[in-house]
Structure formats: C-alpha cells, structure tokens
C-alpha cells in the first residue's frame, strides 16, 4: 500500500528502533536497581566525549566494518555466512605467520603482506563450506557454524602446540617483530593532532573504509557484483542468464571469508601485536547485526559499525565506572539487534500508518 518516504525509511526507522532499544535498556537498568541516566552518561562520556574514548570506539568500529562487510557480500549472493568468527580467527593466524616468519623491511610492506595473508586464510577457511554449498547443497549456515567450532579447536592446537614459544605459559604466539608495528591513530600525521595519547585504533581503520568503498564499487559497478546480486535475487534467473551458480557461490563466499579474515590486521597486528586465543572475541557475530542494521549497504555497515563500536566501548566503561555489570552491554546489544533487526517491520508499519494519517485526507503541510 502506501509507502514510506525514502528519508523516513532510511533514517527515521532505525532511529526510532534505537530509541525503543534505549528505553527498554533503561528499564532493565532500573530493574537491577541502577540509574539509567548515570549509565548513559558514563557510556557517552567514555566512548564519545574524549579523543581517548574515540580511540577505542573506532578500534572496535574497524573490526565491525570488516565483519559487517563479510556478511553483506554473502547476503547479496543470497547466502548467510555465520562463520565470520572462525574466518576472523584464521585471518589472525595468517597475520601471525606473515609477521613472525617473513623478515619485512618496513611496516607498510608488512601491512600489505599481512592483509593478503589474513584475506587468504579467511577465504581458505570458508572454501570448504562454500564448496559443500555449491556442489552438494549443504546449507552454508550449518556448515559455517560448525567451522567456527573447528576454527576454535584448531587455534587452540596451533597456539598451545605449534606457535607457543618454548617456556611461555600463556597460549599465544611470541610478540611480533617491532618492524611489523603499524601506526595507531596517535602516530599518524594529522590524526595525531586529535589523538594525543596512545589509542588502539590504527591505520586499519582507513583500510576498512577503503575496503567498504571497494565493496560498494564491486557490488554495483562490476560484472562480478552484477552477477552476485542477480544470483542472490534469483537462482533460476541466474541459470537462464548463464551465470554459473558454483562459480558465484564460491567467489562470493570466499570474498566474504577474506573480508572477515582481514579484520585481523586491526586486532592482531594493530593492537595485540601477537596472536592470542579467541582473538576475534565475538566480532564475527557482531558483524551479522551490523550488516542487518546497515541494510547490507557499505555506507550503512560503516554507520552501524560505529554504533556497535560505541556500544562496545561504552559498555566496557559501564563495567569499569559503575556498579552495572559489563554484561549489561550484551543486553543492550541484544536489544539493539532485536529492535533494528527482528522488530524492524513493527516500527515500519507503525510509521507507515502515521504517515498515511497525514497524507490521506489532505496533504498537511509540505514534507
């Protein structure tokens, strides 16, 4: 029936969804006997009101951009990659191997090499589920979930038995050589005018933004993107047009895996500077929510990643400065996902009715 104007569809619906999530979150905080106003103040203070806070928020954002794009590209091929978590961990392995075993002359080359290794490892990790989907019809959702568990076991094995330096107790690799240290934002010209204290956000943020632009070009301006989107919309149509299902499934999923893997240049190379257990720490799953909220468009993904970056950093601050447990950030994230994803239609229908009220009897004012 009557449709929403585009601006309402793109901006108003997510805003109202967020507002609803915030209200319910406030009620939950009230219910555990804490002050919601204090909570929101601490969250905003700690994540957005100082350069230092932004340094963390943007660090998380960078990871979420990569994993959000990972889900986005698979989504356009009509495939749901839930394995971003495992692919990101394998990406970390790729980064670690590249940094530890190749004598890089300069950080810039190390960054390029590590990015390629991360992408290759992420892509390789999804290659088996992708092949099973393309040739055997095994559902990608099931196989990628299973591969998350396998990735996790593999990483434990690698860190405990293979990569752990002798004598070290903690299951992680040795520290990467100093030459592979990539600049964080406080070490980059111009950015260091804003970020004066050391922050974890690093140059991979710029790479993430460039990759987001690249994904946009790929999807809407290349033949490959055209074929991915056509296949995603209609498999039967793709067969008519002579678009190979096997080829597109493999390519789209491996690109998706590569994007998840590339997240490791942010957290492993840019922040930890060594590979530790469970390196992706849930960012692979957050990517699903980011893509959902970002409407599977790179611009939306970047904005949604920023929101989740804020929630992550703000949530950590909650745990540090208030009596509200840090787990509250999981509740808030859950509510955000619930409202922006699952209950999106509810808000949309409500708004459609309200707009129709204004529109129908006689157009009231100018929109």
């Amino acid at each position, binding site marked *: *029936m009557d449709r929403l104007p585009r601006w309402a569809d793109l901006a108003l619906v997510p805003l109202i969804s967020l507002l609803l999530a915030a209200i319910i979150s406030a009620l939950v905080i009230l219910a555990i006997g804490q002050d919601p106003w204090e909570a929101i103040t601490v969250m905003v203070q700690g994540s957005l009101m100082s350069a230092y806070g932004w340094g963390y928020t943007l660090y998380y954002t960078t990871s979420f951009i990569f994993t959000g794009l990972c889900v986005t590209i698979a989504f356009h091929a009509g495939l749901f990659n839930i394995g971003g978590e495992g692919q990101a961990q394998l990406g970390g392995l790729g980064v670690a191997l590249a940094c530890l075993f190749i004598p890089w002359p300069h950080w810039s080359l190390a960054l390029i090499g590590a990015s390629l290794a991360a992408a290759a490892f992420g892509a390789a990790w999804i290659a088996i589920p992708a092949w099973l989907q393309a040739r055997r019809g095994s559902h990608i959702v099931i196989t990628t979930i299973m591969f998350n568990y396998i990735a996790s076991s593999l990483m434990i094995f690698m860190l405990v038995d293979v990569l752990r330096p002798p004598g070290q107790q903690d299951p992680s690799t040795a520290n990467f050589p100093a030459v592979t240290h990539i600049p964080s934002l406080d070490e980059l010209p111009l950015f260091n005018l804003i970020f004066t204290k050391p922050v974890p956000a690093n140059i991979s943020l710029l790479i993430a933004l460039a990759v987001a632009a690249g994904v946009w*070009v790929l999807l*809407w*301006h*290349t*033949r490959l993107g*055209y*074929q991915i*989107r*056509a296949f995603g*919309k*209609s498999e*039967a*149509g793709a*067969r*008519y*047009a*002579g*678009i*190979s299902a096997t080829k597109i499934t493999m390519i789209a999923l491996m690109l998706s895996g590569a994007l998840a893997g590339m997240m490791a240049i942010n957290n492993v190379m840019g922040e930890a500077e060594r590979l530790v257990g469970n390196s992706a720490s849930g960012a692979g799953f957050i990517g699903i929510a980011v893509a959902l909220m970002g409407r599977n468009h790179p611009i939306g993904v970047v904005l949604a990643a920023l929101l989740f970056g804020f929630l992550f950093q703000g949530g950590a601050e909650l745990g540090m400065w208030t009596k509200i447990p840090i787990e509250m950030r999981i509740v808030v994230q859950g509510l955000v996902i619930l409202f922006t994803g699952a209950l999106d239609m509810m808000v949309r229908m409500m708004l459609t009715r309200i707009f129709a009220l204004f529109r*129908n009897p006689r157009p009231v004012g100018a929109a």
Partner: protein
Amino acid sequence: MSDTSFAIELKGISKAFGPVQANKDINIAVPKGTIHGIIGENGAGKSTLMSILYGFYKADSGQIFISGKPTPIPDSQSAIRAGIGMVFQHFKLVQNFTVLENIILGAEEGAMLNTSLARARKTLKQLADDYELDVDPDALIEDLSVGHQQRVEILKALYRQADILILDEPTGVLTPAEADHLFRILKGLKEQGKTIILITHKLREIMESTDNVSVMRRGTMVATVKTAETSPEALAELMVGRKVLLEVEKGPATPGETVLKLEDLRIRDEHGVERLKGISLEIRAGEILGIAGVAGNGQSELLAALGGMMRATGRATLKGAALPLSGAGSDGQSRRRAGIAHVPEDRQHYGLILDFAAWENIAFGYHNDPDYQKNALIMDNAALKADTARKMETYDVRPPIPALAAKNFSGGNQQKIVVAREFEQDPVLLLVGQPTRGVDIGAIEFIHKQIIALRDKGVAVLLVSVELDEIMSLSDRIAVMFDGQIMGYRDPATTNERELGLLMAGITDQKGEAA
C-alpha cells in the same frame, strides 16, 4: 439521488499514487442481477478501482452507493458487510486446510469450531445444489485442481452472503473446460439475482458472458456499452485508443538455409522421468516453427535445453556448427554468444530479476557485452541506462523510466522489457516461450509484429505457446508436441483447431506424417 435498481454505483471516484492518477473521476452504475464486464489494458486502473470497492484503498474523492445507499468502505470488513465478495486472481486459501475450514475462516462463531463447521456444511450443500458449485467439503485445498480452488473462493464469498461478486481475471489460470464451467456457474448466480463484476482483458469472455461492459483506459472510464450492441474490434479500439488488428498481418515466409537441426534430443528430469523422448527437428532462416501442445508435454524442456538451462543428450547443430547439449559450452552465456536469444516462458521467474531496475534487466544475460563495459573492471552503467532508455522508447515500455524496478511494471510492460532485450541482440535463432501470456491486447499486437519482423530479417524462430490462436496465426509450420515427442507437422493454412487438438491429445491415426 440514486437509483435502487443499481447494485453498485460509483460516482466521481479518483485515486492518485503520488504523481500517477490511477483513477480519474470514475462513474459506473451496475444494474442488479447482471453480469458487468470491466476491461482495460494492464495499468488502466481496473485493479485500483476494485481495491477501492473492496476497502484496500481509500479513494481521494468520490462516493460509493450500494443499492442506492451511500456506503463508505474503509476496510474489507465493511465491504463484506455491504454484501461485496471478491475472488482474487491469486487465491487466498490456506493450502493445508480443508474446503470447509477455509470457508469458515474469519467467519467462525463461538469458541468451538464444531457448530460453525456443521452450519457451513449445510449451507455448502445448499449452495452446491443451487449453483452447480460442487466441491468435496472435506478435501484439502492442496489436493484440489485450480478450477476447484476457484470454486472454493466463490463459495467463501457466497457463504458470507455476498450479493455482488467481483472476479479479477478469473480465467487466467483455468483450462478452457474449467472456464466454460465457471461461466455456467456465473450465469446460474445471475439468475438467482446476484450481481457479478467480471474484470478481464479477454474480449471473447466479455462477448460471451456479460450483459454490459465498461472500458477503462489510462485511469478513466471511456465507455459503458451493452455487450449485445458492440463487437470485439470496437472494444479493442476503446481499450487501446486506436484501431487494433486482432489478426496478425504477415506475408509468406521465404525460408533460407537450415539454422537449427536437432537429432534425437532427450532429457531426463531429476526423478529419472524422460521428459523429451527423442526430438528431431529443423528450423530454417526466416521461418517460424510453432510448437503447439498442452502445457507440460516437453515444450518447456525443449526451450530450456536450447537456451542452455538444462542438460540434454542427442545432437544439435546451429548453422552447421555443433551445439553442445551438456558440459562446457552448453550454458546460457555460450548460447548467447552463439546468437541464440531466448524469451523465456516465465518472465518473472527467469526472464527478469524483479528487484532489479529496468536498466539492470536490460543487461541480464548480456552483462558481459563489451558495449556495457567501461574498462576491464567497471561496467558502464551510464551507457546501459542510455541503451535502456532507447529500447524503452522503441518498444513503447510504459512508464519509460530505466531506474524503475522491474516488479513495478505491469505484466505486459515487463514482457516488453524482456522482448526488447532479446530481440535487439540480432539473433540467429530466437526462442520464444508464451510471448503474450498475461499481456494486454495492444502489447500482443506489438510483440507479434516484432516476431514477424525478425522472421522477415532472416531469423529462425522457435515459438512455443499454449494459445492455439497464437500458434496458428504466427507459425509458418506447426509441430505438435505430446508426451515429449513430436506427433506431427501441420501447415497452418490448411489445418484447423480440431485437427491440432487431436494431435495434442496424442491421437495420430489420421494422415501420414509430414517430415
């Protein structure tokens, strides 16, 4: 000031969607106890008008009178209360419910179903006896034929005591026999004093079954006439706004060299059933070979194999060169490179990506075309949009907006997008499946003309259609398919529907086969 002898009277109904005026000052009066036809091309505003009458849309202005009383219809519940029943083109039945359960759905009384079920069973029996509307009340919907499902929809409306029955394109999905039965039912309902509004674009049905007919064109009601006092030609002219040729004009064919040669083409489906049982045929340049047959006798598989959508065995040559039927070189891209254009039978399922814009659809299947590339990496979307605008103009696609999503075009205009894309490729061989299914008269004439123009340019055309009229008027030779085989060839000039009908049913004990 209204007359109570009219079941429905609409006065000055207007409805706009944004800048599009879907209905403009519509006036119509339907006398009680008549069958009233509403015809118009796709997009003429018929469906909008009926949606207003059934409470799906609210008119911007105008009034509705039921039996002379002004009756606002804000929602479908009010429409039902006013005695209006609607039978949609796409049925709204619960597949795994029984007929009885579907009938009482939304009209249940009390907490327990038993009482309403029992009451419904009695009423149903009565209705079945009165109107020749017999269906097994305990059958599941999914087990019923399309014709029977439609009867359930009619019963649903009658059960809710509808006095006015609106049917939207009711014969689109029916076989000719089922359609005849439907019209007998409608006559019966009329004799019992019900009023029936029949929306269709099939002139034959209007002429055979209605008392009065209203013609819509581009949102306005251009005329209401007594059916007995008009003719199909006159109605077609009113609908389209110009003279329309209901018969195709075409000169004799001048066939050249053999373009496509098939020998012993066979296809097994995934259940191991043989769908094509050794098809051999030849098509020459500049001729149209029409494949007649009841749907589901292997025509779809034949098109799919030639279009690169299905693997087959056998031998095929295109202009003397081998055409692989499986493995490398048998996909849709290879077929297009070889010069085979394909208008698929199901445009929404295969021929278009409905969510894609028109310009994206113009590249569909031809996305590797060098004309559409800016460089090795980037597609030239601007060139593609310009090309689309040009094709939309040539093929009179309405509205001519390249950025509009395919799903927002009417069926006929969607087909024109597919046709424009495929016909403009300068093919050697053109595969056409059901070119005018669900397409309105003006567009049918246009598409037929284009097919013949391609033939005259020397293209070999393989035409598959379940419409015998279409096969007979377009083809230079007719092959009849039955059960995956070609039963024989006929000359359209000397054969008739009866003879073809027998072949289509698999009966061949007539004359010898022509090769």
